Each structure stands twice: as C-alpha cells, then as structure tokens.
C-alpha cells in the first residue's frame, strides 16, 4: 500500500535510467542518510559510535570491495585482509613522509597502492579460475602478511612492530589520533563510505561493471561478444583492491588507532567473505546488511548471557558465536544463496502487491 509505484511515470530517458527509479526508494534512502548523518551522531553514545557504527561502516566498505570481485566479477578471493593491510601500511608511510597533506587524501591515495598489489596478484586469474584462483589469493594473503612483519621499513622500524596512528588535524579539529572524538571519526568514515558506495553503484551499472558481470556469467561467451577478459578481470581486481585498501586505511586510522599484522590476518579475510555471502553476492545493499549482521551478532551474543543472568566466559561466547555464524552460512547457502539482499527483494515484492497477494503486477 505504501510501497507502490503506480502513477509514477517516466517521461525522460534520464528518469528511466535513474539509480533509484521508485519514489519510495528515494525517500527511504534519504531517511537513512538523515538518520546516519544527523540523528546517530547527536544521540549515539561514544560506545555505540566507536564500537558498533564505525567498525560496521569499515567492514561494509571492505565487503563492497570483495563483492565487486566475487559477487560481480565472479573471482573468488581469500586475500581481502591482506589487501586491507596494504592500504593501511601505505597510508601510514604516506602520512609519515608527507605529514602536512590532509589525512583523507592519504587514505584515498593509499587505496591506489592496494589496487596495484591487487592487479599483480590478479594476474594468475587470466589463466585459472574458481578454486585455483582462491589458492593464489591465499598466496597473496600469506606473502603480504609476511611482508608486514619482516619489512621493518613499513612500520618505520618500530620496536613494537605496530603502526601507531599519528595526530592529524583539519584546522583545529582532530581527525585521527587519541584526541579525535568518535563523532568526528564516524562522520569522516560515513561520508567516505557514502560517496564510495555511490561511485560503486554507478560503476557497476556502467560499461565496466556490466563487462564484469558478463565475465562472471560466462567468460567464453563474454569474450566472443567483445569483452576483453584481461581488461575486465584486472580492472575488477584493481577496483576491488582499491576499496579494500581504503577500508583498511580507514580501519587503522579512524577505528583501531594502532594495528599489528594480526589485524589483517586470514580470519579477517574470511569474516568479510562471510559478510558478502550472508549479505548477498552481487548486491551493494547486501554488503551493508551482511556487515551489520556479522558485526552486531557477536556483540548481541556477548550480551545475552549477562542479561539472562548466566555466567559465561568471554571465550565461550566467542565459540558459540562461531558455531552460530557457521551454521547460518550453511543455512543461507542452502535456503537462500543470494542472502539478505534477496530476502529484502522478496519482501519488497510482497509489499507491492499487499493486500492482494495473488495480484499480478
């Protein structure tokens, strides 16, 4: 009843090609943006902002990166964590060499380094695919992790081996470092994520994005129709790694504050892969849903026993959340391989025909 596009006529090509052709979708998105930009920073506690919203946005961005590669271009990758690491370390080096340049510029530039590394490790994808490719991305994961430990230049020869985020300001406003407030960090991340999501949405429905999907659906047929696999696959790797790299830089500079190599290990690669699977392969909205679900679920599981008055060790809750997440992944793969995004779509379809479920639209 509320969600029905009857009477919304498209009178120009531009409105026919709009990103959100239905008015209710536009209003909904606007509402979400208003909530995210205005209401959450005003009413959110610093715990809510710092420990829930900021990590959620970082992981959502990384999930978009992986989804571009896996969901849209069909190339399975298990090296997301390492590509995020490349972005983080590149950003750290850039800001130590050029401390006067704005940190946000550094974050955006550091993604380019991740893209370069991504292209190099994407080269084997031209000859192999599927499971084999997954293993070459494992090579990227372990090799880069080793680099982060052994190449002391990357962390400025610290004794700790960790990268410590320096204080960086715009004017008098602290953006990074211990003095930056959660609200500032949240708003910076939110703006970047919003802009990059918009860019991704437009790239994906444009020429490059469609060539990725053709490669995913059937590479040989795509090649016959004039798509160059070399260009399509490598550009997918570059784009995906750029997003992961930026997410990694944001993760260290605007969330963690300091990071060692453990922040980029293979478990993070898996976590982001799970977010993409549960959220929905080939859906941007799914990335946000998957990231929210997998980040918030363990927090909820941690709180449930204390609410119920049961004494439970922190380790035990972690194991239980492992089991639940694993079971959920299997459940989703069996029941709904397209994840939350598909459920969301089905829900919208139902809403359109409600209260006449058998009406043909």
């Amino acid at each position: 009843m509320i969600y029905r596009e009857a009477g919304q006529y498209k009178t120009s090509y531009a409105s026919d090609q709009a990103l959100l052709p239905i008015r209710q979708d536009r209003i909904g998105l606007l509402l979400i943006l208003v909530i995210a930009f205005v209401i959450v920073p005003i009413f959110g506690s610093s715990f809510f902002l710092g420990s829930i919203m900021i990590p959620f946005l970082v992981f959502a961005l990384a999930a978009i990166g992986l989804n571009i590669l896996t969901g849209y271009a069909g190339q399975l990758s298990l090296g997301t964590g390492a590509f995020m690491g490349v972005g983080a370390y590149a950003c750290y080096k850039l800001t130590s060499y050029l401390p006067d340049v704005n940190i946000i510029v550094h974050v955006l530039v550091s993604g380019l380094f991740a893209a370069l590394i991504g292209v190099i490790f994407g080269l084997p994808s031209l000859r192999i695919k599927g499971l084999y490719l997954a293993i070459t991305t494992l090579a990227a994961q372990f090799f880069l992790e080793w680099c982060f430990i052994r190449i002391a230049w990357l962390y400025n020869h610290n004794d700790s081996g960790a990268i410590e985020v320096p204080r960086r300001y715009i004017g008098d406003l602290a953006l990074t470092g211990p003095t930056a407030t959660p609200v500032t960090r949240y708003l910076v991340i939110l703006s970047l994520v919003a802009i990059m999501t918009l860019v991704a949405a437009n790239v994906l429905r444009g020429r490059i994005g469609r060539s990725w999907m053709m490669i995913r659906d059937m590479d040989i047929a795509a090649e016959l129709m004039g798509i160059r696999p070399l260009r399509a696959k490598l550009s997918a790797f570059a784009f995906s790694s750029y997003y992961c790299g930026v997410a990694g830089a944001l993760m260290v500079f605007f969330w963690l504050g300091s990071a060692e190599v453990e922040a980029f290990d293979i478990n993070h690669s898996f976590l982001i892969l799970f977010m993409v699977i549960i959220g929905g392969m080939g859906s941007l909205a799914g990335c946000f849903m998957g990231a929210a679900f997998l980040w918030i679920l363990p927090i909820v599981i941690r709180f449930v026993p204390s609410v119920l008055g049961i004494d439970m060790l922190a380790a035990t809750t972690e194991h239980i959340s492992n089991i639940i997440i694993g079971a959920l992944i299997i459940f989703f793969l069996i029941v709904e391989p397209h994840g939350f995004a598909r459920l969301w779509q089905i829900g919208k379809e139902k809403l359109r025909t409600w209260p006449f479920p058998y009406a043909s639209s």
Partner: protein
Amino acid sequence: MLAIVIEWLNTLFVAPFVDMFSLPDFLLQVLWEGFVSGVLYALIALGFVLIFKASGVFNFAQGIMVVFAALVLVSLHAMGMPAWVALALTVGVMGIFALVVERVVLRKLVNQPDAILLMATIGLTLVVKGAGQLFFGGEPKSMITEELGLPTGSSDWEVFDGIVIFQHIDIAAAVIAILMVASLGVFFSKTRIGRALRAVADDHQAALSVGISLNQIWAIVWFAAGIVALVTGIMWGARSDVSFALEIIALKALAVLILGGFTSIPGAIVGGLLVGISEKLFEVYWGPIFGGGVEAWFAYVLALVFLLFRPQGLFGERIIERV
C-alpha cells in the same frame, strides 16, 4: 655496479649450494625433516583428494577435521578410557560426523556451483572449530603417543663425519602413511565400494543410472576422509601438540593439491613431499637472505608459479572447456 650484481647472484645462486655441500650431514637432516613434514602435508591433501574425487566438493574443513579428530581422541583418553577404546570411539565419532555432514549439508546442495560448496565447507569449518573449542577448550594438548603404542625416542646415523638424527615417530609416520596409501589403493581397485567410488568420481549421472547410491557413497567418502584426518591428527600431534594452529598449516595442503592435481592420489603424495622438502630447503638455505620465516608463504608462491605453467598439476586431468 657489476660487482654488486655478481655479489647478489652469488648470495642467491651459489652460496646456498656451497653451504649445502660443505655440510652434507646437515643437508641430509634438512632433507629428512622436509620429507617428514611433506608426508604430513600429503596426508592432509589425501583427505582433500578423496572427497574432491567422489563429490567434486572442495572440502575446506579437512584441516579442522584433523584437529577435531585428534582432540576427540585425546579427550576421550583423558576421561579415563584405554587408548585403543578411545581410538575406536573416535573412529565412530568421525563416522557419525560424516553421516551428519552428508545428511545436513551435502544432500541439500547437490548441483550447486563449486564455489557455493566451497563456501559451505568454510561454514562447516567454523561450526567444527567453535564446537571443538567449546567442548575441548582452546589450549594445546599433548598427543597420547606412548599409550597408542607408537615409538618414541630417536636414533643417530653416522655419515659424512657427522650424525643425522631420526625421530622414531617420524619413521613411524612415514611407514603408516605408505601403508595407508597402499590400503586405499587396494580399497579403490579391489572392493565393491571402491569401484562404486571410482564410478561416482567419473560421472555422477552414469553412476546413478547403474544403481549406485550417491548419498551412501558421499557418506562413505567423508568417513574415509575422517579416518585419514584422524591418522594425520595422531601423527601431527605426536610431533608437536594438538592445537587449533594446525588449521592454518593445513591450508598448505591446498598448495600441495595444485602441484599434484586435485584428483590424483599419487599426485597428493608427490606434491606433499615436493612442498615439504623444497620448503625446508628454501627456509634453511635461502630464508636468511629474505629475513627468515619464509615457510609461511613459500608453498603458496611455489604453487602460484606452478599454476602459470601447468594448471592441471603434475598428475591431474586436463580441463578442457567448450562453449
């Protein structure tokens, strides 16, 4: 400039070999260590190959199954059971595990793309890992080597004016691995079930049409992989401790599979030995040039380079795609 290049070539291509042949007894020791870790890689890879051949599922959970089987065995023994009873019970547990996996996961995912099945086994890995940590605790445990009647101690072999040390458990591991591969070979070629397994591996539909039950075969294959996992877990646990760190090391079996080919049992063995030995040699003789710790990635990079030249592996079937 030229001097630098020569110096560099020297450290990379000459000095390591000079090191090798100036201390031949040490080289033998390194080769033996590499051989033994290669046997263990090969055992894990064997579990992968068994399942991949019969069902086309790339079983990511093989590594965690190794840990799980070893933990069940150790914990049952810690509850006061004699070692052999615990062993028999563990075999039973792996059998139930195989049945459950087939019934709950595989049967529902027939005909899905490979990537979906792979991700399902990654989910399975999480479940098994969480359950294992929940029931048995996350801390490392020592394997009940002596109770199982496995040899301990070591012997020295005097050669080239030096000694090479052989741990008895390593020798036992090699012997058991050979026995297991041989018995699997007999099982595959001589028994009724083995022939059915090969039929399923060749063509699912044809196998179905001559009356072979796919579900039954899958359960059997997962059970066989579970037993391979148990043996691997015992051997690995006897060399170091039983801990969840093994899960990451088990990923190296993927590199082994690329070298050997996904569908070949001899390939898994040869690939495992190749990775084990070359990795140890590289770590010991070339590692210091790179700053050490190269064992973490060498196997994968080796596999990556190998893939570019021979994607089907040493013994794998060539994949030909047609439009």
